[in-house]
């Protein structure tokens, strides 16, 4: 009996022992790898770098562009807008608004990606032939981070005022990936300093990457273009002008002056004026600014969500090539009724090369940095610099843009008149690209909607086409998303939210 028991026990032990053979217990997913295994070679860095641009593609246009534009003064809600983007348009949005939440989260996930890359790339030891390639990826990551933080600081903080920037609350500054981090808000100055620091690193790392028209990756020109934009916001007139002028001086990106070429630049994604333009294809579709048309394929008529005000259309001279590139008169069906010849925004009609069906999907390659903005930055920085030579150059830059667009040059403008002329030109040139509300904010001007087109097709009510907001309205500075406010006790909410 004793002998048998031992045998029995041995069999049992053997069976249990089998359970410890556990190599089949390591299962890896088919389309993912573990984060720790992903920074080994420069080839890994390359896929990260592609992922960076893919992320960036998902963080321009769409909600990232539309939300401030509908909040601004140029657009009115149609009767069929279905309350899409209604809350920011009425300015009655709260900090749990999905557009606010998604934009905030979008930029921060983009930042997380750049943070992981910036730290992860340090672990890679490149061969001597790969150093330049890896530097380029590092430079891209720094510049992308600078771009994201600049977007965040423009939306969620007061405009940069040199006197108070060190104490004005900015946004949380997160530079390393750590899910257990509960960051407080850094000052506006600290955030801008970080942006400038990242730009400086990118400038160095991308110094050998030549610019090209329509480049789908960052170049040394893109670094300068972003720097010019950032320094303009910082009221660093000299720095902004220097950076913008440097881009203009490359001569790589001539201004378009032909009507057909300019219309196609927008409709068919030309490249001439683009310092940095997202690569889009049918399999890699970009976000779309699809609130402006609403084509009904079966009738060929349109049911847009948002319609430009008459005064906005009237801001463009008949000779201005932007007028027919940005607007088109269309036949509408609103609430089942027909309306003819209503001006609609036609800046993003959808590039036929990107259509996935018989009719437009409103996909256009996002133009993130374009040369016209650099002319306007140079002109505004010059006009506000208080320096006569710079002011004179500002008028030259402004006129170069005006003439290219089919307008007459302005003469003998200085001071406020010159600044106002630059503002008007900025209004025209950069309409519906997400700049307008942020411009009003940094110019400290109120928001006033007036003179709409046919009111029969617009949503009526005091918060729509007659809405007026003073320059100090707290909602110029967005509220921090409710979710983050609730979960992160270290955050301080903006006033008025």
């Amino acid at each position, binding site marked *: 009996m004793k002998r048998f028991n031992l045998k029995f026990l041995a069999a049992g032990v053997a069976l249990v022992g089998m359970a410890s053979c556990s190599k089949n217990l390591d299962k890896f997913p088919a*389309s*993912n790898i573990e984060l720790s295994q992903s920074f080994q070679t420069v080839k890994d860095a390359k896929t990260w770098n592609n992922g960076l641009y893919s992320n960036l593609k998902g963080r321009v246009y769409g909600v990232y562009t539309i939300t401030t534009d509908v909040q601004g003064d140029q657009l009115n809600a149609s009767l069929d807008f279905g309350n899409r983007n209604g809350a920011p348009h009425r300015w009655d949005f709260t900090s749990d608004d999905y557009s606010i939440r998604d934009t905030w989260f979008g930029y921060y996930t983009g930042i997380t990606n750049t943070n992981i890359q910036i730290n992860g790339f340090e672990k890679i030891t490149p061969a001597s032939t790969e150093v330049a390639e890896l530097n380029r990826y590092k430079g891209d990551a720094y510049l992308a981070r600078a771009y994201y933080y600049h977007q965040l600081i423009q939306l969620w903080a007061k405009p940069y005022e040199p006197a108070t920037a060190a104490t004005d609350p900015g946004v949380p500054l997160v530079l390393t990936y750590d899910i257990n981090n509960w960051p407080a808000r850094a000052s506006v100055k600290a955030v801008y300093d970080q942006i400038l620091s990242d730009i400086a690193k990118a400038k160095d790392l991308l110094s050998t990457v030549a610019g090209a028209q329509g480049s789908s990756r960052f170049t040394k020109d893109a670094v300068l273009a972003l720097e010019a934009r950032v320094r303009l916001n910082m009221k660093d007139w000299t720095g902004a002008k220097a950076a913008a002028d440097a881009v203009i001086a490359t001569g790589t990106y001539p201004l378009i002056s032909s009507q057909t070429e300019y219309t196609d630049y927008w409709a068919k994604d030309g490249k001439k004026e683009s310092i940095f333009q997202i690569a889009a294809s049918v399999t890699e579709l970009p976000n779309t600014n699809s609130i402006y048309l609403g084509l009904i394929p079966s009738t060929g008529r349109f049911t847009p969500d948002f319609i430009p005000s008459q005064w906005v259309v009237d801001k463009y001279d008949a000779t201005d090539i932007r007028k027919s590139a940005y607007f088109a008169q269309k036949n509408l069906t609103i609430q089942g009724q027909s309306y003819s010849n209503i001006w609609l925004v036609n800046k993003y009609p959808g590039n036929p090369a990107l259509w996935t069906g018989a009719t437009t999907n409103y996909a256009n390659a996002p133009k993130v940095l374009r040369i016209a903005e650099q002319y306007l930055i140079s002109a505004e920085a010059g006009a506000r610099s208080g320096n006569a030579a710079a002011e004179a150059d500002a008028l030259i830059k402004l006129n170069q843009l005006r003439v290219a667009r089919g307008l007459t040059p302005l003469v003998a403008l200085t001071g406020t008149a010159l600044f106002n002329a630059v503002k008007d030109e900025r209004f025209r040139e950069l309409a519906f690209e997400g700049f307008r509300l942020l411009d009003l904010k940094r110019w400290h001007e109120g928001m006033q909607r007036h003179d709409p087109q046919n009111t029969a097709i617009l949503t009526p009510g005091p918060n729509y086409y007659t809405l007026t907001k003073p320059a100090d309205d707290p909602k110029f500075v967005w509220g921090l998303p409710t979710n983050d406010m609730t979960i992160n006790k270290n955050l301080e909410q903006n006033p008025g939210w």
Partner: protein
Amino acid sequence: MRRILFTIIGLLFISMQLLAQNRTITGKVTDEKGAGIPNASVTVKGNPNIGTTTNSEGNFSLSVPANAQSLLVSSIGLGEKEIALTSSSTYNVTLSTKAQDLQEVVVVAYGQQKKADITGSVSTVKAADVENRPFTSVDKILQGQVAGLQSVAASGAPGANQQIRIRGVSSITAGNEPLWIVDGVAVSSGDASRLTTTANLLSTLNPNDIESITVLKDAASASIYGSRAANGVILVTTKKGRAGKTRFKFDAEVGQSDRAYTNDKYLPLNAAEYIAITREGLQNRGDSPTAIESTLTALGANNGTDFNWYDAIQKKGRQQQYNLSASGGNDRTTFYTSGGYFTQEGAIINTSLDRYNGALRVTNRATDKLNLNVNINGGFVRQRTPLAGGAFGNPILSTLFLLPTRSAYNTDGTYNFSLGGLHNVIALTDMDIRRLKGLSLRGSVAADYKIIDNLVFKTQYGMDFNDLEEDQYNNPFHGDGASSTGRAFSYYTRLSNWTWSNTLSYARDLLSNGDLKGNITVGYEAAEEKNYSSSLQSQNFPPTLLLTWPSVGATPITAAASQVGSTFNSALSLASLNYRDKYIVSGSFRRDASSRFSPTNRYANFWSLGLSWNVDREDFLQSIDAISQLKLRASYGTNGNAGIGNYSYYQLYGYGFNYNQSPGSAPTNVGNPNLTWETNKPLNVGLDFGILKNRLNLSADWYKRKTEDLLLNVELSRTSGFSNQLRNIGSMENTGVEVQLNAQPVLSKSFSWNLNFNFATNKNKITSLPNGADIISGSFILRQGQSINSFYLREYAGVDPANGDPLWYTNGAGSATTNDWSKALRIIPGTSLPKQFGGLTNTFNFMGVTLDAQLVYSFGNLIQDPWAGYYTGAGFGATFNKVRRVLDRWQKPGDVTDVPKYVYGGNKSFQNGSTFYTVEGDYIRLRNLQLGYQLPQSINNKLKISNAFFYVRGTNLWTWVKDDNLPFDPEQGIVSQSNLDVFIPKTITFGVNLGF
């Protein structure tokens, strides 16, 4: 097919005629209550090739050689009895449960167990209660049959998924479906389709191949399945052959189906009614008379059309099934084989399921020590299911939304596509394709070897293979494909599992007088599951309906394939001690490891302990004849829920973030190396009680199961780049009572009445959540102290009689009201889970005529109709049709009603979610009503068949609902939210069962 069958039958008759020297013995096998025992085996002693089985009445007829001495009569669970043959040709045999009751064997985890040894809570369902039902899968048949098992449909589409909850809901994030084990092998269940609205992997399993189903509900019975047992375990055992003459069984059934529940208040308006209410709505909005007429004209006023979309999408669904099986063998080898065909159409257009089945099981006693067993069970289904919910291609939606002023057809008979942007679902039924083809193979090879007496080694390698091909085509002319000029999808999915289990079982007497018996099983099990999928999509199709495959589309959209999977390794052991069948102690232990958890957290132990006391075996009860059974049971233990993502613990970096046609990657999963199993700790106390020779049996259980380490997403600062992280945090508990009652109020030779009642309650309570904070998700809330699946809605207060405005309460006391929806207070009006549910079956038997009626019921839940705002929302969605309930609207000051004034475009956000759109879900349903006639044995003998049974059966013929305002069927899934799904059908079938 039919001709071949008759030929076979004919040949059999001829061969029987040749056995002229035989004599025919007839008789009836009954249990001690006098009820016939179906499927009992009757063989000639010494010659197992000569035998038969009893029919569903317990009758048998057997031609035996003149020299036969005696018969052996046996039935599973009732033991065997030898009957000496005399000159009489009729024998009535009683297999006594009194004597044999404790010897009855039940299929349990990793084997079988005598009923006396069971310490846990186990319910069984026999073949007779599963066979020949007009349901597409076995999980639907379980409804109302097992106390504490809630089986609920969401859709009446043939092949639709069925949700099963055993003893309540125990997880928020992980799975809640029980583990299905078919012949010892864990199989995939649920809906694995990716394009089909709803599908069910168990649709491929033919219920007629099932011998028995055992439901394991507590720790003692289920914890041996360790990390997969938390939601209960359902063991399915398929049919085996039995030694003896080869027996054929042929079952056929035909019938048709119709909508089971209709509420007239939720039928769509006709053209005149729609135009009238719309005119009222426009007037109420303050439109000018000319504007009103212009709007009405655009909506088709007075255009002479009054098309009834509701009638147009309904149809009588056809239902047929045919099953043929053969079984037999000799004392060394037995076999069972079967083939089946099943077809069912739904009660609306574009719904159907066809199934083809085959099964084979062969067992062989190779030596006295070695047994071999091979079985394979295959099924192929073809399914067609329309879209549900808010999709414009949903036929149910279209009946409620499409205007009656717009016909499906133009005057020339062609399809009308001008339907205000909605889809002509009748045209799409012809023009589009939505198709699922599923193939499943389930099977195993097994051997057991008796090393020495009482020591048996068993090895089984089983697999489960499910293949799904889904094809979808949306034509370029109209419907979902129009915007992309036609599109087509081809998706392929393969789920495969294998399980290899090895066990060593040893049983022996521990006391020399036999008073104390013990047995122990130890084992090792390894399992893997893999899910392979590929997806193709293209669009831009030529302008024809003839070319429907993705290869035709000019623009490729999706080309992807991937595989995911997981592995489990386990060591297990089971042991029990039995003292004179009076006191039983059982225990189980399992150590599981799974690839779903990080190496630091990969192993976990699960155990159970069970006790039972067969009081009726005690001397002091032996003398009390009235009490035939009294047993007390208790069990406690732990088990786990591994129903979590395969790679959730990894911090992942995913591909697919491509840029400029180059591969790109980015962080995709925040990961958590500390993730582990949700742990379930069930406590069960039970009582089995039988009196009057078991004419009355009662089984009652009380349970409390606590679930801890619930997987929940914990919010992160979004500045981290992630919104939340899955962690083991949170707990809940379920408590309930289950009662199963069997009674035989009348029992005589010619008439018997059998009654079976089951009753279950369950109460769920969330006991902890991250930081104690509420989690609101859509219409539901998770709140500590409340039940899971609690609705969280603004409380509707009715209509202001003065002006017809909708009102909502602003305080919990139900006094202050507002007409501003956004200012209304959200409350918990109830939950989607029933408080009580169960079934009642009455079976009457009179001279061969049987009447079987099964009622199922479910009480105490709320049902929400989330789409109702469109068709009862006081004018919201004004250009869509409305249902008759809006006719109850407020019209003039002083009107008292609950439907507000009808305003074109909507009245004060009445369409938004509130308690107006929830109703009480209590219902009673006549699930099964069957009237059958058993051909007398004397006629069978003349026809040379062993059994003939004819029946007519109605399913879901009658439904009682508590709430007059219940819009759709009371069965709306576990979440009790109707989703404009295919109607649940009522079915009438005629059938015949033949044995020969």
